[in-house]
C-alpha cells in the first residue's frame, strides 16, 4: 500500500524535515558557541575538523533533499497538473544529489 514512488518521496520529505528541525538548532547553537568562544581564525581551524565538516555536509544534504522535494510538492499543488509529475521525484532527487555531492567535494577537497 505504501510501496510506490510518491509515498516513498513523502517519507523522505518527512524524515528530512524532522531531521532538519532537530539538527539545525544544534548546528546553530554549536556555531554560535564556537564563534563566541574563539577568535575567528581559531573558529576556522575548529570548523576545518573532519567531524564538523561531515556534520555540516550532512545538514546541507538534508536541506537539499528537503528543499528540492518541497519544491516538487509546491509544483504539484500550485502548478497545473502534469502526468509527468512522478518524474519530478527523480529530478528532485538528482538535483539534491548534485548539490549535496558538490558541497561534499568542495568541503573536503
Amino acid at each position: 500500500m505504501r510501496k510506490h514512488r510518491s509515498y516513498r518521496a513523502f517519507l523522505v520529505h518527512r524524515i528530512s524535515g524532522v531531521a532538519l528541525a532537530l539538527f539545525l538548532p544544534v548546528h546553530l547553537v554549536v556555531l554560535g558557541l564556537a564563534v563566541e568562544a574563539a577568535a575567528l581564525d581559531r573558529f576556522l581551524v575548529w570548523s576545518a575538523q573532519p567531524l564538523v565538516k561531515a556534520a555540516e555536509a550532512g545538514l546541507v544534504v538534508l536541506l537539499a533533499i528537503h528543499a528540492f522535494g518541497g519544491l516538487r510538492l509546491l509544483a504539484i499543488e500550485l502548478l497545473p497538473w502534469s502526468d509527468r509529475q512522478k518524474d519530478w521525484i527523480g529530478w528532485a532527487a538528482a538535483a539534491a544529489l548534485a548539490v549535496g555531492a558538490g558541497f561534499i567535494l568542495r568541503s573536503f577537497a
Partner: protein
Amino acid sequence: MTGTLKVEIWRGAEEGHFEAFEVPTQPSQTVLDLVTYVQRKLDPSLAYRFACRVGVCGSCAMMVNGTPRWTCRTHVNKVAAEGKVRIAPLRNLPVIKDLATDMAPFFDRMQEAKGRFVPSEAAAKDVAVVPPDDPKRKEAAAGIECIGCAVCHSACDVVAWRPDYLGPAALNRAWTLVNDVRDGDRQGHLAAVAVDAGCHACHSHQSCAEHCPVGLNPSRSIAGLKQLVLWAAVRGEL
C-alpha cells in the same frame, strides 16, 4: 489448473482473528469468488458484501494481502502470494462483522464535503450547454466515474492519522462539483473543503490514485481544490 488455495479470512469485528480455509482453485477466479465459495460451501455465517460482481456498484472492496482492492475484479492469480490469500475488511472503517465494514463514516465525509449538486436557477430553467472540450467540463469528467468503493479512503494514511479528514473520495467529488457550471453554490463547495480537515490536510502521498480501481486521480482533484481555495482566500472570498 486444479488444486487448492489457502485463504485466510478475518472473523469477528474490531477484535477477531484470521481463519484459514482451503478453497479449490479455478481458472479466472476472483477474490470475491473465493469469499463466496467459503460462504456458500464452508461457513454460511461469513459476512461480506457485494452486489454487481462486475466493478460497477463499489460494494465489494476488501483488503487483499494488505492492499485495498475491488475483489470482484481482482484475479486470484494476480495477488496470491506463495499460494496464499489473506482477506480482511477495508482499513480505516469500523468493522461490523467479518469482511463487512460500516461505510457510514465514508459517506458522511461526502456530505461534510458538500458533495451534493446544488441546482442553480439558470440551470433549472433551461438545459445547460456544456461543450465537451470545455476545460472545466474535462476536469469534472475526469473525476466523475467514482463508484464509491472507499478503496482510496482505505489506502490513504492521512485518513488513518486523522479520522476527521474528508478523504480522497469526498474531495474528488467536491472537485467535480466546483467544475460543474450548472452548480449554483461553488462558494459553498469551496468553503466546505477549505476547513482544517479538508483539502489542505492532504500530503500528496497519492496512495489514493495508486489504488483507485477505476483509475481516478483524487490527488489531482485535491491539488486543484488547494489552488482554488488558496486563490479564493487571497481574494478574501473565504
